[in-house]
Every structure is written in structure tokens, then in C-alpha cells.
């Protein structure tokens, strides 16, 4: 059985949509292969359909859905269901809020690291306000005591240094430059050695003072 051009044209869409039975599909293709006019028509329509099916739907204009809802439900219509419960979240669900939340999170993490908080060891009872208060007060007192001790130690070291310094930093006798052609006397030649000894003793005392500051227990005894 063979089909004519009229049949090809009238059944073209069914062929393109693969709705033709296998035998009719065979007749259709056999004719289209042999007829230049029908072959061109089939390739034009199927090619155009392929391009047409690639087209995506146009985007909905901004605000259209909102306008439809306002027209139907009303602008202040009471919304029911889950959305009404989550409605209060809408103002905070913004990019700005997200940045803020991330910043707060990072700050908490940094502070936790700084204060040595280990979240894995935190128990529910630790979050009980009195316990939280006690732990915070203890931590604050500890920090204060350490700071006070450090200042006291510094003060002791400074005191030792200030007592030793006048001896070590005695002003050197005024140098009298010899006149050109005059030689220096024997006692004048001893001055650099004395200065060296003074510097050496000052260095020893400084070392002693530093060692003392590192051994606070012994200093207080």
C-alpha cells in the first residue's frame, strides 16, 4: 500500500507526535522518502516543532501573583495554615539578617576559644542560671587574681631595679679632655675599667631581679 501527498499532509501531525501505528508510519516514511515536496514539508514541520518545544515559558511579571491574591483573598485577608505561623519570620528572612547571624556565630566561636569553653563538655545543668553565674564569677575572680599577681610582681621587680640602678648608673666624673699634645695620667687610664665593672654588676643584678620575678613564691617568703 502506498500513500499519496494528501494523506501525508493530513497525517503529518500524528506522525510528528508518534501517534501513527507502525504500519502507517512505514507507509508515511516510504512516501516522504520518495516525494521531494512531501519530504521537504515533513522536515520543515518536524524541525520547526523541535525548535518550538525548546521554548521555555515566559517568566511571570513581578507582582502578578500578589495582585491576583489581593483581588481574590483581599489585601488584608487572614492567611491560614502553616504560613500564618511562619509569617512573623518574613521580616527577618533577609540577606542582612543572615550576615548578622553569621557574624554573631563567629564572635561566639572566637570568644569561646578565648575563654576556653569546650562546648562538647557543656552539660545542660551548666546552663542553669545559678551555675552559670557561679562559673562566670569564678572565672572572673581567677582572671582578676592572675592580673593582680602579675602587677605585684612587676612592682617588686621595678623596685629592685630602681634600687640597683643609682649605684650602677653613677654619673661618670666629668671628662677633661687633655689639651693637644698633653698625655693622660695613670689614674685617668683606670676609668674605663671601673665603668666596665659597674656595667657588669648592673647586668648581674638585672638578671637576679628577673629570676626573682619568675619565682614569685620565693620572693614572697
Amino acid at each position, binding site marked *: 500500500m502506498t500513500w499519496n501527498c494528501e494523506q501525508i499532509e*493530513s497525517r*503529518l501531525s500524528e506522525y*510528528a507526535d508518534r501517534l501513527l501505528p507502525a504500519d502507517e508510519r512505514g507507509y508515511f516514511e516510504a512516501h516522504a522518502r520518495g516525494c521531494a515536496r512531501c519530504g521537504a514539508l515533513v522536515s520543515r514541520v518536524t524541525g*520547526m516543532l523541535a525548535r518550538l518545544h525548546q*521554548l521555555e*515559558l*515566559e517568566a511571570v511579571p513581578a507582582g502578578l501573583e500578589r495582585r491576583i491574591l489581593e*483581588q481574590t483573598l483581599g489585601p488584608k485577608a487572614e*492567611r491560614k495554615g502553616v504560613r500564618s505561623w511562619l509569617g512573623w519570620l518574613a521580616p527577618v528572612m533577609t540577606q542582612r539578617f543572615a550576615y548578622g547571624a553569621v557574624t554573631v556565630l563567629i564572635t561566639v566561636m572566637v570568644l569561646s576559644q578565648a575563654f576556653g569553653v569546650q562546648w562538647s563538655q557543656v552539660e545542660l545543668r551548666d546552663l542553669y542560671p545559678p551555675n552559670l553565674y557561679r562559673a562566670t564569677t569564678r572565672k572572673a575572680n581567677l582572671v582578676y587574681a592572675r592580673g593582680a599577681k602579675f602587677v605585684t610582681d612587676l612592682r617588686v621587680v621595678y623596685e629592685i631595679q630602681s634600687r640597683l640602678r643609682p649605684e650602677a648608673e653613677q654619673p661618670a666624673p666629668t671628662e677633661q679632655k687633655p689639651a693637644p699634645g698633653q698625655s693622660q695620667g695613670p689614674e685617668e687610664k683606670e676609668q674605663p675599667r671601673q665603668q666596665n665593672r659597674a656595667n657588669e654588676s648592673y647586668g648581674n643584678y638585672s638578671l637576679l631581679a628577673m629570676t626573682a620575678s619568675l619565682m614569685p613564691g620565693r620572693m614572697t617568703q
Partner: protein
Amino acid sequence: MEPDAQLVQNCLRGDGSAWEELVRRHTRRIYNLCWRFTSSRHEAEDLTQEVFLRVYKTLGSYRSAHGGFATWMTSVTRNLLIDHYRRTRRDRLTDSLDDAMPRLEEKHSPVRRPDQATLANELSGQVQNALKKISPDLREAVILRDLQGLEYAEIQDVLGVPEGTVKSRINRGRIELARLLEQMGVRPE
């Protein structure tokens, strides 16, 4: 995902969120149907709102046993489009001179044809121009089948014509559209 029929039932019980969901699901499809038919974004927007308003008012008359909600909505849209077509026929006759050179107009319009337009947008515009040139009967059949993706049976329900007529309109519409697109320089894939 909740089926449309269930959402309709929830709507009828006064659940506003069910109606919101239906609007969100179908707005894009209905808007595109209106736009392809009228070739005017402004008119398509107005018609889409009109469609949803009518659907909202007549939601109680929908029977899921008679077909899908999408098909029913398409029927409502089609009725409104026919009304709109009849209403604006006189305007179109007086604007026939303007229709004669739409491409020249669009070439200089930065809104319709921006310099950076993608090929897809260009094809979409060419299809739109070609659709405007074929008769409304053939146009709606092609739009429903090839741009909205409806099955033949669904188109039959929407148009209310026998299956043979649907096939014939789709067939003739496609051949006409392919010829017009070829004239516009669109190459088949």
C-alpha cells in the same frame, strides 16, 4: 505535592494557603497562554487576573471527575480569551495598518528587542509574530498543543470539538506556522 483537586477542596473549606498554592502553580502557564494568544504582555496580565478571579468565584462548580483542574482552568481561560478577542476585534480592524509592519516597530524598540537578546528570546518573538498571522482557531490549537503541552484529549475537552477537528486544526496550524517561520528566516532544527 498535594494534588490540585485536594487543594480545591481545601480552598472550598476556606483554606487561603491552598488557594495561594494553586495561584503559584498555575499563574505562569495561564499568563503564557494569554500572552501567546494576545501578543500583548499588558493584556495578558489583565486577562490572567481576570481568569483567576473567575476561577475563584466559580471554584465550587469544578468537578474533578470531569477532568483535571489544569484543563478546567484552561477552558475558563479560553472562554475569556474568546470574549476578549471578540471585544477587541473592532480595535484590531482599525489597527490593521499598524499590524502590517510590526517587525519594523520591534526592531527599534529597546524593550522588545534588546541588543543583548538571546537566541531563545529572538525565536520566541518570531514565533509570536507568526502566531499573530494565523487564524484564531488554528492558533489556539497550536498554542495548547505545542506551547502548553496539552494532550489531544485535553485539547478536545478545552475546545469542545470532536477529536478529528482537534487533529485537523493542530495539523493545519503547524504547517502554516512552519511556513511563516521559514519566511521569517527561522531555520528548522
